[in-house]
């Protein structure tokens, strides 16, 4: 019994498609090499968690470098940390946490069939992301002006101890890689928003919204650790 293209064994809400195929009007595109749509959702979610695990390990390498150099240069790191703008860092933390809330709410609204509310929440998330990047830009700009830059670009005369350029190298690497993830997350959420507006998602089928949300939460997670480690030594 091969799945028939016209009739799905799971009811009219589940449309059999080829891998990666789409279904109209918020129906579930069931890729028929999966046993059931349930298995498909499970596979997608599990795949995303595995991907998040690779992201965590990607950042872990930087956190390990940070740990080593903080152990070697504890006083300098404390000194340099106090040279960062704590209020901007704190505001950015609050902004990202709020965006995490709105993206969780967006998934909630898609699942309860309120696509309009979901769209609104996703737009708020994207605005938060923009705000985060703008604030980050001001922080970076300040450092470029002062010369608190990594490695051989370090020209700041205020702190001249060994290890200060290393702190700023790690600062730029961690926040830079994180900002890159913010940009990627924004692209993903923009794509998701577009398809929410187009009505592709519904309480029956919301997997991409959920996966996009998971990615965004990861961006938040990384920042939750970066904030105390960089700003609050």
């Amino acid at each position, binding site marked *: 019994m091969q799945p028939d293209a016209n009739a799905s064994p799971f009811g009219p809400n589940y449309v059999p498609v080829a891998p990666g195929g789409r279904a109209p009007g918020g129906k579930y595109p069931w890729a028929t090499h999966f046993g059931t749509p349930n298995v498909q959702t499970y596979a997608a979610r599990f795949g995303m968690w595995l991907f998040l*695990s690779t992201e965590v390990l990607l950042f872990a390498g930087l956190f390990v470098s940070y*740990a080593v150099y903080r152990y070697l240069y504890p006083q300098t790191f*404390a000194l340099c940390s106090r040279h960062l703008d704590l209020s901007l860092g704190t505001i950015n933390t609050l902004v990202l946490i709020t965006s995490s809330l709105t993206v969780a709410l967006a998934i909630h609204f898609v699942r309860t069939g309120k696509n309009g509310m979901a769209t609104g929440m996703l737009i708020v998330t994207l605005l938060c992301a923009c705000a985060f990047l703008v604030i980050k830009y001001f922080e970076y700009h300040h450092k470029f002006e002062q010369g608190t830059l990594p490695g051989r670009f370090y020209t700041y005369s205020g702190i001249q*101890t060994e290890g200060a350029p290393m702190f700023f190298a790690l600062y730029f690497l961690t926040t830079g890689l994180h900002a890159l993830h913010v940009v990627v997350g924004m692209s993903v959420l923009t794509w998701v928003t577009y398809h929410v507006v187009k009505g592709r998602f519904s309480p029956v089928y919301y997997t991409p919204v959920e996966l996009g949300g998971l990615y965004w939460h990861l961006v938040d997670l990384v920042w939750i650790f970066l904030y105390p480690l960089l700003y609050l030594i």
Partner: protein
Amino acid sequence: MADITKNVTDSHHPADLEHHGAGAYYLVWIALLALTGLTWWTGQMHLPNFGLALALIIATTKAALVVLFFMHLWEQKGVNRVTFVCTIAFVIVMLLGTLGDVTTRLETLLPKREAPASELSHMPKHGEAPAHGAQHP
């Protein structure tokens, strides 16, 4: 024979998440804001011995809230949890293996250490220009 014809990959895990109201999300959000405030407050005390530990405990609590409730790991039993826990375990392995080296290495084999703490004793507050005493002699 009868039971094996059931699709083994299907019966174990209902894919749909539990439905509950949005209230929990707001509670988690408020908790996250509060914890951010707490770490901001305690971070500025610069507690000498357990400042780092406290900051990490607060950050881990916040991360746990995000992972368990925003990311729904609370409801997802089984493999996604195992994946996440394994990931964290391997991060810790990487951290321990590397720090285990740096912390026990001969002083001469480390890159140059910073000057003794006494020369760096004056720590400015946030935003304050560092004193010139912080310069390396």
